[in-house]
């Protein structure tokens, strides 16, 4: 099936893989923001995950260890952010920016020796005969395990936030840190955990980018994916399933844009490459226009510093 030189099945199959890095990062950021902390350093954590994951996978020959290293690097960066914003009470916006600038620099420094190196391949899961079903097979059953894990992650986050005590505490901290503190919950500890999880997911997303999506290390390779993840959380009105929708929409646009480039349309490459960013802006605008007169979807304490005065 093909429309205008674009094969729809290939496009749909590409979509899931193209969305995965942003989906992971956005899901992590969602949890962090639900606890009331705005971490603008997603881009920095992602790129650190990308370089650390790549380096570890090349060194050990195991992509799985690469993903673990990527998640660890992201979590480490997030812990740095947590120390500054939760203990030293620094401004969250400024600290997030610092995290991104620092991450971009440090990753370039670490990645110096890895340009042009090929990482060990990550195998696709074998679904046997399922993968041979026409249309459905290539779209749903032709991916590696991280793709499925990322969808599972969304389900887990949704369940935990909605139905468990831990999720309730997390949301309470995010809605009113003073009330949560008065009830005896440890606001700072909860936020450390949420930020750490967010960082690990961003790092994992970055590692997926450098180990599977590209697969190569190049300086600044995240190219704004972290910022798009932040935009998707806003787009999703802080709801996990909408994060999935937003990430897949974004992935679809990226895949379509790449397919259009490959199909040899007479649109200049650089103009096509703008598309994901322009569409992100358009979607943000539509959403903020819709929410203008509705309820505020953001956690009430988002971006505010917490200092227990008693």
């Amino acid at each position, binding site marked *: 099936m093909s429309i205008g030189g674009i094969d729809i099945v290939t496009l749909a199959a590409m979509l899931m893989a193209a969305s995965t890095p942003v989906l992971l990062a956005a899901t992590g950021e969602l949890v962090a923001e639900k606890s009331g902390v705005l971490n603008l350093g997603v881009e920095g954590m992602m790129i650190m995950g990308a370089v650390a994951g790549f380096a570890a996978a090349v060194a050990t020959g195991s992509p799985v260890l690469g993903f673990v290293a990527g998640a660890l690097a992201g979590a480490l960066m997030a812990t740095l952010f947590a120390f500054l914003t939760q203990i030293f009470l620094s401004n969250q916006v400024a600290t997030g920016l610092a995290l991104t600038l620092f991450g971009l620099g440090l990753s370039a420094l670490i990645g110096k020796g890895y340009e042009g190196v090929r990482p060990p391949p990550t195998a696709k899961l074998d679904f046997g005969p399922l993968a041979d079903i026409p249309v459905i097979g290539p779209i749903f059953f032709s991916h590696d395990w991280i793709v499925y894990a990322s969808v599972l992650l969304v389900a887990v986050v949704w369940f935990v936030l909605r139905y468990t005590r831990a999720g309730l505490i997390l949301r309470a901290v995010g809605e009113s840190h003073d009330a949560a503190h008065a009830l005896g919950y440890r606001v700072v500890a909860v936020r450390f955990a949420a930020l750490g999880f967010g960082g690990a997911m961003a790092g994992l997303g970055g590692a997926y980018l450098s180990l599977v999506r590209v697969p190569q290390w190049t300086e600044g390779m995240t190219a*704004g994916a972290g910022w798009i993840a932040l935009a998707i959380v806003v787009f999703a009105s802080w709801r996990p399933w909408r994060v999935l929708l937003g990430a897949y929409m974004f992935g679809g646009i990226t895949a379509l844009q790449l397919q259009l480039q490959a199909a040899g349309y007479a649109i200049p490459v650089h103009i096509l490459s703008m598309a994901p960013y322009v569409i992100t802006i358009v979607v*943000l605008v539509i959403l903020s226009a819709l929410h203008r007169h509705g309820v505020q979807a953001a956690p009430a304490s988002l971006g505010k510093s917490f200092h227990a005065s008693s």
Partner: protein
Amino acid sequence: MITLIRRPNPSKFWTYATPIVAVIATMFAGGLLFAMLGKHPVEAIRVIFWEPLFGANASYFRGQLLVKAGPLILIAAGLAVGFRAGIWNIGAEGQYIMGALASAWLALHVYPAESHWLFPAMIVLGALGGLLWAMIPALLKVWFGTSEILVSLMLVYVAENLLAYMAFGPLKNPEGFGFPGSRNLQSYPAAHNADLIAGTGLHWGVVTAFVAVIATYILMHRHITGFRIRVAGEAPRAARFAGVIPARLVVFCLGLAGAFAGLAGMFEVSGPSGQITDSFNVGYGFTAIIVAFLGRLHPIGILLAGLLMALTYIGGDMAQLMLGLPSAAIQVFQGMLLFFLLGFDVLTNFRVRLGRRARA
């Protein structure tokens, strides 16, 4: 156990001392980083901070200091006004590119003009390019409440792609033997932003940066608008009662920062860089954010911070040449500086008490 107790008023002493403490801490941490890279830490720090100012060939490097500090100070001076009001324009890099593109487009469009009016017209177009690009997040914020952080940042990537498109397409040098990049404005007298005194690095962009420092100082500390901006940042509710209109503030702050960034781009493309290429932008728009914070969002502080940050750029280049220090190490160094600054800032607003938790 260490406890923090909020000060009734921010400490005057620590307001001035934190940047200095942060720089010293960064030198130590940076030395550690350089040592891990197998370089002698003291030597590396000396090359970065001493060599460009007082070493051999220092007269050349002092000029380079102005060339690098000019755009940083100009952009940061504009950004700081917005940051004071709690308006986060982090897309200065994009506004910088658009200013450069707009002015270079004009110069190349009328090539080979000899008019004396070309350069002033380019200045106007540069400012306008940055301003209009910044109006996108400003108006979207005012009309729909869209986050200016995300929109201004997304527009950086759009501007970067537009820059590459222009460098490979419409603005490509027709006599460039197929190489990407525009004609060199340095060999186009009517459009060239030359040194005012040859070899000093002092070009119109540097002059504009100094003017911007003075202008923003007057605006922020001697004018009612500056007072409104500061109130809006520190107490938004009080500002509303005092008659501050948030929409106007957003448009003003983003417009000012955009125009300044556009100007910086214009002076860069017509002067030190000379050419529109896909790698024309080198991250001044992002480094300016560090400069603004290091300068405590105060115009005079930004002037000093811009010079210091320019020093790390040039010193970093020298360390790369003399010691083989990777260029990314300097980027890490600058990032660490911002971390230390933000961390130590706790001392400005809080008193640190050692010992048992104090009773409130």
